[in-house]
């Protein structure tokens, strides 16, 4: 287990995983920003599908595979400055597949036939969990370019975050599968061999004539790229297994994402990967935890029932409002009698929310125990008042992550 500070000091990769909707993308971006501002590293944040404003916060304007370097201009309004460099890129599955095919195709004719095949699009969209494979493939590509010291990758939403780790292996298995061999081994005369005949007859009856043949033809073409693909997948797999690769699990303190996080940490262990860090996201801010709000709620309850005090406070509010130039209209529309009633109601709501917040924070502390159960070391990120929309938001989130 590693602290955030130690994690960003390491060269290599940080794979950020966790259930959908827990804030992986923001956390990944914040870790990237933190590394680039605290160290002199060249940092890349690879993200799958960021919210528009988060993408803008990273200076990404359009969807594409291109790595964009974030200029210090973006940090203009902030006290924190870049020490290293920061780049970001989104992962475009289709474009990355096209790249792969172009790289591995033995000749131009094969490349064009594959790219234009009507089955190809379908294949890139879902075959062998292509999003996952592409994510690790892009990771490898960026890493082997040597242009970055640290790469933070935000994993794609999938059935579970493990599919990304198994993707390279699955790609290799795919090429060595008996089925693929059966289907493509000289597909012309294979149709006529006695053993395969019932297969094809039945498949034709099931699927419609010719479909199987089309598929076989496509895969025959695809197999010409086997060597390239398999070698690459092996390298990608080796990179994931490298000690330079760290894993961070992000979760919110709710049952479903937490169960996924627990499952993930067990599965990582089984695959001999180390979970370096767990991050509990969207927790009630520290200063609002504990007994303090309960005490305030009790006191508020007394205060709002004290009619003498309420009328004094009403008067003060009316006077402040009159004298204040900034708070223009506010209570001018509320008369004094109504104001004291409103004041009591508002104080009651505040009292209720103080209690509600305490309740949530108690539940969160209990669930935090479960995070402690799978991670010896974890860090927390607070619930934020708004969506992250600029680099300052990421800097703040990164700083909060960095506090132990």
């Amino acid at each position: 287990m590693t602290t955030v500070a130690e994690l960003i000091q390491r060269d290599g990769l940080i794979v950020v995983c966790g259930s959908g909707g827990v804030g992986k993308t923001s956390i990944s971006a914040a870790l990237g920003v933190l590394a680039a501002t605290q160290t002199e590293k060249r940092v890349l944040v690879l993200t799958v599908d960021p919210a528009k404003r988060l993408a803008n916060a990273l200076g990404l304007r359009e969807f594409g595979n291109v790595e964009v370097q974030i200029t210090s201009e973006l940090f203009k309004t902030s006290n924190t400055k870049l020490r290293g460099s920061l780049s970001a890129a989104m992962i475009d599955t289709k474009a990355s597949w096209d790249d792969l095919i172009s790289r591995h195709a033995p000749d131009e004719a094969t490349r064009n036939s594959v790219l234009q095949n009507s089955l190809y699009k379908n294949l890139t969209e879902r075959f062998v969990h292509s999003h996952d494979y592409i994510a690790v493939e892009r990771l490898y590509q960026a890493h082997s370019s040597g242009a970055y010291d640290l790469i933070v990758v935000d994993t794609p939403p999938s059935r579970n975050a493990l599919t990304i780790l198994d993707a390279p292996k699955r790609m290799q298995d795919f090429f060595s599968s008996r089925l693929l061999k059966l289907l493509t081994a000289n597909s012309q005369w294979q149709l006529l061999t006695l053993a395969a005949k019932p297969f094809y007859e039945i498949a034709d009856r099931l699927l419609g004539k010719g479909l199987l043949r089309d598929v076989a033809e496509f895969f025959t073409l695809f197999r010409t790229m086997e060597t390239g693909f398999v070698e690459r997948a092996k390298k990608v797999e080796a990179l994931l297994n490298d000690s330079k690769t760290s894993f961070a699990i992000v979760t919110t303190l709710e049952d479903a994402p937490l169960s996924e996080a627990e499952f993930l940490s067990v599965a990582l262990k089984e695959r001999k990967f180390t979970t370096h860090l767990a991050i509990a996201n969207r927790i009630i801010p520290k200063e609002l935890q504990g007994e303090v709000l309960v005490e305030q709620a009790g006191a508020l309850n007394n205060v709002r029932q004290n009619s003498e005090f309420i009328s004094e406070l009403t008067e003060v509010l009316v006077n402040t409002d009159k004298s204040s130039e900034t708070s223009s209209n506010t209570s001018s529309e509320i008369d004094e009698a109504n104001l004291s009633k409103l004041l009591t109601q508002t104080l009651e709501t505040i009292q209720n929310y103080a209690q509600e917040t305490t309740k949530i924070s108690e539940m969160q502390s209990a669930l935090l125990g479960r995070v402690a159960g799978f991670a010896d070391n974890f860090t927390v990120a607070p619930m934020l008042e708004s969506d992250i929309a600029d680099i300052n938001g990421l800097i703040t989130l990164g700083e909060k992550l960095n506090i132990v």
Partner: protein
Amino acid sequence: MLDRQLLFITGKGGVGKSTVAASLGRAAVAQGKRVLLCEMDAKGALSTLLQTSELSFTPREISPNLSAMTMNTQDALREYVSIFLKTPFVAAIPGLAGIFDFVADAAPGVKEVLVVGKLCYEVRKGNYDIVIVDAESTGHIVAQVAAPTTLRNFVPLGPLNEQTLWMTAILEDSQKTGVVVVTTCQEMAVNEALELVGALQTKTKVNTAAVIVNRVPSEIFTKSQEIVFNQLNQASIKSFIAEKTGLSIDLSLQATGLARARRNLATNHIASLRSGLTKLDPIKELLLLPDFSYQSTDLLVSKLSSELEAELS
């Protein structure tokens, strides 16, 4: 919404699709319907929510009028072969399921047709009044409901092709079938929901039954209370209160402020969802469900289903 016979519940990962599907199932049972809930990915979320043991391809009645199953392509294939091709022995040929799986993966629409076909078949058989599908997330649903049509274009002949016709008749009948898009009031989820409703409209003839916003934080203040809250939050007022009562209410204000900020943020996202949806005519329903995410699992489904019952009645 619950008057239809087939509902696909979809949305971005993590928005609570399974919870909403299970709650809709319970709400339909409360309306006196016989319900089949079907989980599309074998993740097991549905069985946890319904507090029952692992589900299988064969539907199991887990409480009166509520049955549940989990989808499986290979079982769907086996059933398809035995029912429609009337050749039960075929599916037993070793390796066939494997090669079929392989080819089905590559050919557009084949797998989806099997899966959607099974669901439509349950509708056609009429053992249930409504089939509620805890469907796959946004990325796949369009391909799924459009699969019979896609397949017809791709494989112009053959038995599978013929089978797609009756499926389409069920899927494209808005009296019978609808997609329910679930979202939360977060930027990404809202954008994805809007994109999905648009895609369903342009790429399929399947009707969108409703958009459900899950986990909407409750309203904190009325408009005039909001004004008072802002006044209380001034330094001079805070010190007046402290001076008079010995009470510093700063942290309580902060806690309330956090809840208020989150509510406002949610309201803004819902507003942009609403305006986005009005541009995509016709829109059936926009339902808002309160945030029960801090409830235990059993309470979650029962609370949400009574909320849904109230909303839908």
